């Protein structure tokens, strides 16, 4: 492993470093829990790492909220999410996803920006954020910003819509409009601990006082090249009473989730198994 490192401490130093490296082969480094292994597996020549781990600005680091949304800096770690009251109480899906990442030591360094930008279909926190219909705020070298829904920001395995002169700055999650929620993260791995998802289902339902589903967000992981938002399944379930779903409705819902799955067979599981698991956990959501 051999590369040059540039370590900006402020946003302007960061933008300067990205601008100065446009003609070169560079990568952004945050928590390094994906990168180090990638560098070892596929060494790159003449590589520069723009090391954002020491950026101090709040915009990359803090968790803030207003009446419309809650925002997460790209450098927020899985452990930061677990320690945040708002996330724990109002967005359990994100908290459970963060808690299911690897181990405490990795959660202490793994950032949400890295989880998203690595663009793995089995990225847990990214999956929870897709279910929450989060948006990405992207900053370019001129200091201009654009926003894009996370679900379209992720283009394929290891591919995002980021241009070479851009960086992910912040993630924006719309506030809940109801205080009654059913929200969680179902992760299936080969063992209980330290396991990359074979399949996951991230769900976030907002209910009326009387238990009718008013808004739904569902994302499934490791079953397609990206992390799909299952909008047809969401549309199907909205308007129904959560606790009174009939068996055929649960099955119809699970079928609709399955429409988004085009899994592959790999070292962790076969496509057949992934389909079966996704169907079963989708159906079991309402049991």
């Amino acid at each position: 492993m051999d590369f040059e490192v540039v370590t900006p401490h402020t946003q302007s130093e960061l933008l300067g470093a990205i601008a100065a490296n446009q003609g070169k082969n560079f990568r952004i480094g945050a928590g390094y829990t994906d990168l180090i292994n990638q560098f070892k597996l596929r060494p790159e020549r003449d590589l520069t790492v723009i090391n954002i781990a020491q950026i101090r600005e709040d915009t990359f680091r803090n968790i803030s909220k207003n009446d419309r949304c809650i925002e997460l800096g790209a450098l927020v770690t899985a452990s930061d999410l677990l320690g945040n009251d708002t996330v724990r109480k109002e967005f359990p899906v994100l908290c459970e996803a963060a808690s299911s990442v690897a181990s405490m030591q990795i959660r202490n360094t793994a950032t949400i920006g890295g989880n998203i930008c690595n663009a793995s279909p089995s990225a847990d926190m990214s999956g929870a954020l897709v279910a929450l219909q989060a948006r990405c705020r992207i900053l370019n070298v001129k200091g201009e910003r654009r926003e894009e829904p996370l679900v379209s920001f992720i283009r394929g395995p290891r591919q995002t819509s980021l241009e070479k002169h851009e960086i992910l700055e912040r993630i924006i999650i719309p506030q809940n409009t109801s205080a009654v929620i059913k929200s969680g993260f179902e992760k299936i791995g080969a063992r209980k601990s330290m396991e990359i998802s074979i399949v996951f289902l991230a769900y976030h339902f907002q209910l009326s006082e009387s238990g009718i589903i008013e808004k739904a967000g569902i994302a499934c992981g490791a079953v397609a090249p990206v992390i799909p938002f299952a909008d047809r399944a969401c549309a199907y379930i909205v308007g129904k009473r959560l606790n009174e779903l009939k068996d055929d409705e649960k099955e119809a819902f699970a079928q609709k989730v399955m429409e988004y799955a085009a899994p592959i067979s790999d070292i962790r599981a076969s496509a057949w198994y992934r389909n079966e698991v996704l169907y079963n956990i989708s159906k079991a959501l309402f049991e």
Partner: protein
Amino acid sequence: MNNWVEITMKLNGKTVSCRVKPSSLLIDLLRDEFKLKGAKPGCLEGECGACAVIIDGNAINSCMYLAINAEGKEVTTIEGLGSDDNLLDAVQEKMLSHGAVQCGFCSTGVAMSIKAYSEKMKALGIKPTREEIKKTLEGHLCRCTGYIKIIDAAEAVFEEGSEM
């Protein structure tokens, strides 16, 4: 040729400066430069936790951490536990008395995770459940003990805390 970078950190209580190759990992800096061999190279892929050290109160895997990012931080290795009057830290005492150390390869990493977690929980005044303790230690592989004794030892550290 790479440009080496000067870093300053607090290592086991002492402020130290050194020059590092930008791409070098913290585990190599600790073991090769500072001769602190407590952090073990197990898998070097983030899986086993044998290389765990504490940075600013958080346990991390030093095999996945750039040495240059220790700049300005407080780094504690197993060599930094204990004190002048007490050679072993309470975590180490409990691990010994509960038979949680066999070959010892995983033990330094385990001790660092228990230490970081127990300090945090004590600061918050929380006594974690056995399940929570297990969850905290999921990133440590041990091929000897079967884990039960390690978890017993960690639980005992918290018992101690509540008596104080």
